């Protein structure tokens, strides 16, 4: 009995001493009490403060601390809704444009007075190596890149999911690895050609003359005319944007958070398809579109008379540099 009382008293004392601590949780309505859910976080309130919900995580994977990022749905909307259209319009639009040009104006042919039989070196072997290394990488990067957007829509129905997956797996490796020689090639191209591609007054004149496309007269041009300079700067700026965004994607989450990754993927994809469209025009004019243009990057040598017609200021410069270099007489010289 006595022990029973003592025990009861002890329990009472213990309960009283605990009461202030437990009050906020159990004693709702008391003046000192606190509604346990008054400050509790809830999803909707958190989304009002922030576009995503982030907390603390006890694993080393930092990106796991993001509980919810509804922006994923927006990225999905961009990637599946907008991107195929942007890509299709940019690339097919360029193909249609070039086809229209080819079928209305035809090839730009050499004029008969652009053939002297004598050659001048336009691009040395290092320049050609750099061009073709970058170009090869570019074409593979472009095709494997387009596979990410159009593969499942165009190729997969034809060859089935298993073969398509195998191709895509190798495409991914090719895309990841060939990015590096592409970047190196881009740096080389900037090193060897940037000085000759600084825009100047002559380019303005060349642009005003429409590059001679319409009247057939050749405006003055240095080593590169304004159109070629434009290609150089498209490649340089496009290539740099692709390289920077690509490196961010190659090292996911190294420098960016989830939203950064989404934005950089978007930049990479949009610039990528525009870059491809621009390069289609470059490929066209360098091969099918203009007779003799391919030789400059093929053998590296062009006909001196052609060079004089298209790049007169450059030829003069080269001839001034090397008195012993290839000379072309201004008018036919009788054979002696």
């Amino acid at each position, binding site marked *: 009995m006595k022990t029973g009382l003592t025990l009861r008293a002890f329990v009472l004392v213990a309960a009283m001493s605990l009461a202030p601590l437990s009050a906020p949780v159990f004693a709702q309505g008391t003046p000192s009490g606190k509604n346990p859910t008054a*400050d509790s*976080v809830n999803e909707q309130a958190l989304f009002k403060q922030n576009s995503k919900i982030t907390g603390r995580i006890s694993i080393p994977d930092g990106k796991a601390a993001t509980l919810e990022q509804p922006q994923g749905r927006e990225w999905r909307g961009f990637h599946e809704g907008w991107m195929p259209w942007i890509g299709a319009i940019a690339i097919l639009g360029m193909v249609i444009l070039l086809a229209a040009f080819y079928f209305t104006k035809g090839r730009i042919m050499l004029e008969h007075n652009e053939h002297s039989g004598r050659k001048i070196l336009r691009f040395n072997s290092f320049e050609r190596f750099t061009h073709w290394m970058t170009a090869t990488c570019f074409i593979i990067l472009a095709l494997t890149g387009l596979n990410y957007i159009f593969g*499942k829509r165009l190729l997969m129905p034809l060859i089935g999911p298993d073969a398509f997956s195998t191709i895509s797996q190798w495409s991914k490796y090719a895309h990841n690895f060939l990015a590096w020689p592409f970047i190196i090639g881009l740096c080389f191209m900037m090193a060897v050609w940037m000085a000759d591609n600084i825009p100047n007054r002559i380019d303005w004149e060349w642009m005003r003359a429409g590059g001679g496309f319409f009247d057939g007269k050749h405006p003055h041009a240095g080593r590169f005319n304004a159109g070629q300079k434009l290609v150089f700067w498209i490649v340089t700026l496009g290539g740099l944007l692709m390289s920077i965004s690509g490196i961010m*994607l190659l090292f996911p989450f190294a420098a960016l958070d989830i939203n950064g990754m989404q934005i950089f993927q978007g930049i990479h994809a949009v610039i990528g398809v525009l870059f491809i469209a621009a390069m289609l025009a470059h490929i066209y004019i360098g091969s099918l579109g203009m007779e003799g243009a391919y030789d400059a990057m093929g053998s590296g040598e062009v006909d001196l008379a052609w060079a004089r017609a298209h790049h007169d200021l450059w030829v003069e410069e080269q001839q001034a540099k090397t008195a012993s270099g290839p000379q072309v007489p201004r008018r036919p010289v009788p054979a002696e």
Partner: protein
Amino acid sequence: MARMKFLCDSDRCIDCNACVTACKNEHEVPWGINRRRVVTINDGMPGERSISMACMHCTDAPCAAVCPVDCFYTTADAVVLHSKDLCIGCGYCFYACPFGAPQYPRVGNFGSRGKMDKCTYCAGGPEADLSEAEYVKYGANRLAEGKLPLCAEMCSTKALLAGDSDMIAQIYKERVIKRGYGSGAWGWRTAYRETVAI
């Protein structure tokens, strides 16, 4: 068929991480891959809440939409699964997933990802149910054995609920009515465009 979902009652979750451990153990998930995780919001502050999060098996799943090789599929129970044979490890599903569910083993060069791994709702993969190949790639297939996901089954406070959408919503609703409060079905609005109406 049922519409399987998870629901984490964050007013009950005590951040014990047993769901995470159970998942890792049940499926022999390798180091660095976390199919389930517990995130604590407002850690150490009044109103702190912990939420156990894994793949929510979304309706019209964004991961499936962005996959460049279409390796995802949805089962009759509305569980979103994928084929590791088709997956190329591009990482798109992680960008699209609102819940950070897809995980990638780091293999090879640079930040290169291996084949994606994520919560399967303990429902295996495209291989034959309960086969060795299925276990090696995707872990246990408890659903085929008539069991629910282990994370929810062993949750000590029954904070994490798994099962048919209507049933777990009903359980949660009753709880909220009885105790008088609830911070909602986390992620439901984003995953299913709906929430539990109380």
